[in-house]
């Protein structure tokens, strides 16, 4: 019997994180609207100095094309830096574990993965990443990719309040994302993590002498500082290949809850940053509501199915009664509720960290995680998650407006055919980058799906589907199986392309749509205006999101995760 009282800790944590969201969201909104915020006296002069070094100024606002150019230059330079770093890591200093240079395709996949905020890994950190790659190169992307997502959000939303066609200054948005949000919070979170038991040292390797003889290598490093920015920035990369399941990265139930809090902080607050930026706070609630409804259903389903025992194991003689959830691929210390909350927040917030083996989950729990990546907006990753929800909302308002005969407009700006075309492209690029490569991989015999039973075959199918979905959504979590080897040149190159397209095409659309709004003068509200700050709109948006997503992905959801039960 499921013990609801044992959920008290996750309910308290959710309560704290959600109660903080409006206040923290308005702080984010103030940062991106350049309104006075705490820390101005200290940081304004530092930022002014950085702008001088960069050769730009906050007064130089960019149109969408220039904003995208700056974004691509910075992200491209970062990806090139990472690519060459990883491809040379064996020859660069700080490689005490003797990690060899990455092959070109692995370096391509890894650099694309980190640049796009995905952090899907095709390598084993301990043997294939040098200490310098882990502690110097990768963290650059942990900061910059998160800042890029936030910048895109800020730029798109500015389209609703400006009327000069500009979206703000990309470099200024990046600098302020780091100085005002990512750096201070990550530093504090890292220190808390150390107090909760996470290592933070520059001793890379300790050789231990186990009780039964032999030796064991214990890999250490600046784990806390890495892990805190990885979670805060919704990157989801792990210092260890076991990610947040590793007891070193996540030593206790409390560190697990704290990590969950860090992951929730920005994605769940972003609707209120939007409300603050457009100066209509009530408009944030429908989005917050939609996120909570979808996330709440997902979490309830996930924990219910993980609490149940696996009927497939009933035939095994001598397996003791199940306590505290299904144990295969789970860590002992977390307990069912804490482990589940972390995993659902991580995938729905597009972080992609894992504190369990996703491949061992019950089929319905796997489906729940896949659904979160299909919507990628409840709440979705840093900045871009909410921007995706806005695109869904524009489509929904357009469709709904046509149905009831109202002018399709939002926040005093007309939704025109051009915006709808762009938004539809962004929404459709997601299934396209999942299903097309999936078909190519299967038809091209790049992976053998046939397992020992129908259930095993469906599991292999799910594994490949999950891989492409995770890459396309820039999520980064993996549902691995022994049979699916994704470290081939084919999966490295395809994966890199999927991640880049899945990241930068929607970003271009978000900027373009923001730019089109920014060129319009605001309209006066009239009798035909759809009231969007309402519970009705929240419910409509929720159903629109769920139905469009389900319609697109129903066949693969049935063949994959659910096929494992049949």
């Amino acid at each position, binding site marked *: 019997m499921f013990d609801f009282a044992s959920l008290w800790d996750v309910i308290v944590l959710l309560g704290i994180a959600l109660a903080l969201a409006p206040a923290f969201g308005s702080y984010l909104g103030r940062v991106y609207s350049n309104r006075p915020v705490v820390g101005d006296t200290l940081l304004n002069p530092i930022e002014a100095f950085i702008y001088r070094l960069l050769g730009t100024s906050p007064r130089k606002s960019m149109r969408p094309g220039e904003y995208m150019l700056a974004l691509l230059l910075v992200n491209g330079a970062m990806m090139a830096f990472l690519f060459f770093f990883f491809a040379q890591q064996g020859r660069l200093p700080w490689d005490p574990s003797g990690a060899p240079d990455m092959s070109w395709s692995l370096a391509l996949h890894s650099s694309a993965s980190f640049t796009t905020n995905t952090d899907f890994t095709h390598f084993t950190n301990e043997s294939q990443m040098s200490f310098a790659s882990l502690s110097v190169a990768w963290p650059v992307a942990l900061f910059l990719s998160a800042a890029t997502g936030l910048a895109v959000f800020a730029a798109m939303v500015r389209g609703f309040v400006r009327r000069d066609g500009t979206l703000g200054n990309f470099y200024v948005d990046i600098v302020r994302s780091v100085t005002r949000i990512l750096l201070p919070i990550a530093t504090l979170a890292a220190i808390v993590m150390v107090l909760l038991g996470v290592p933070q040292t520059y001793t890379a390797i300790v050789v231990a002498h186990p009780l039964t003889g032999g030796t064991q290598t214990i890999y250490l490093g600046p784990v806390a500082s890495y892990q805190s920015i990885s979670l805060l920035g919704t990157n989801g990369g792990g210092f260890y290949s076991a990610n947040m399941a590793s007891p070193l990265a996540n030593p206790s139930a409390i560190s697990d809850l704290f990590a969950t809090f860090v992951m929730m902080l920005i994605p769940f607050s972003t609707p209120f940053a939007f409300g603050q930026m457009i100066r209509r706070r009530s408009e944030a609630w429908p989005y917050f509501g939609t996120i909570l409804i979808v996330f709440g259903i997902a979490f309830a389903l996930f924990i219910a199915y993980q609490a149940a025992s696996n009927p497939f194991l009933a035939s095994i003689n001598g397996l003791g009664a199940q306590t505290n959830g299904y144990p295969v691929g789970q860590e002992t210390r977390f307990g069912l509720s804490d482990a589940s909350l972390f995993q659902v927040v991580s995938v729905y917030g597009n972080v992609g960290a894992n504190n369990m083996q996703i*491949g061992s989950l019950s089929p319905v729990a796997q489906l729940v995680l896949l659904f979160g990546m299909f919507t990628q907006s409840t709440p979705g990753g840093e900045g871009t998650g909410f921007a995706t929800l806005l695109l869904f909302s524009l489509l929904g308002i357009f469709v709904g407006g046509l149905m009831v005969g109202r002018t399709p407009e939002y926040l005093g700006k007309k939704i025109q055919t051009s915006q709808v075309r762009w938004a539809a492209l962004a929404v459709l690029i997601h299934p396209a980058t999942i299903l097309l490569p999936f078909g190519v991989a299967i038809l091209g015999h790049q992976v053998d799906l046939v397992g020992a039973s129908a259930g095993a075959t469906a599991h292999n199918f799910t594994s490949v589907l999950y891989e492409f979905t995770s890459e396309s959504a820039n999520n980064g979590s993996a549902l691995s199986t022994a049979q699916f080897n994704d470290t081939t040149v084919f999966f490295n190159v395809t994966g890199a392309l999927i991640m880049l397209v899945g990241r930068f095409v929607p970003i271009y659309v978000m900027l373009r749509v923001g730019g089109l709004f920014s060129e319009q003068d605001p309209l006066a509200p009239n009798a035909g205006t759809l009231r969007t700050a309402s519970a009705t709109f929240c419910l409509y948006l929720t159903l629109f999101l769920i139905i469009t997503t389900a319609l697109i992905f129903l066949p693969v959801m049935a063949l994959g995760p659910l096929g494992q039960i049949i």
Partner: protein
Amino acid sequence: MSAPSAPRPGPRRAPPDAHPFAVHVRATVVLLVLTILLAGFVYPFFVTAVAQAIDPYAADGSLLYYPNGTVAGSALVAQNLSAPYLFWERPSLTDWNTTLGADTPPGPTDPALQALLNETLQYMREDGGFAVNATLPIWWVTPSASDIDPDLVPQAVLVQVPRVANATNLTIPFLQNLVNEHIQQPILPDLGTAYVDVLELDLALLPLIGK
């Protein structure tokens, strides 16, 4: 709740000048260099300095030592403890070889999962001194997520007491007492699970059996 803002008609501002391309290149290079310095060095160095000052035990990896000062392991990393006189942890698909990272168990409805659990049960029964059809705690015979989970539910540690008593000449009540002393209860009820860090328990056991 603020009222919807009224439209503000008026002359459009002139579109701003774009940065020249050379300025973009310069900004990109400077931004990347600054981020490498910050994310790769300043930030982790600062956190390390603070960490080493406030909690050196955790910062250095929660290392556990033998009385002679040699490193036995980390309280946060399971290792091979498969000796008759020691308490055992959960099985590891990587044999506790940290260099291999974590391995993936078979899927939830894959016959290979049944085979794996049957094999583990058989091994635990034979080498653990249980009856051929003994029922064993499920958390003890299933693979973890990290393959280096050092923790075990108390029930699964207590079932091992008779075997350890047999191999060490320590009495069953004494060992039960030792295990109970090592149970780490959640700080508040249901905030995580109660567990025993098996490596710490075994390290406490070693001097008692003269090893």
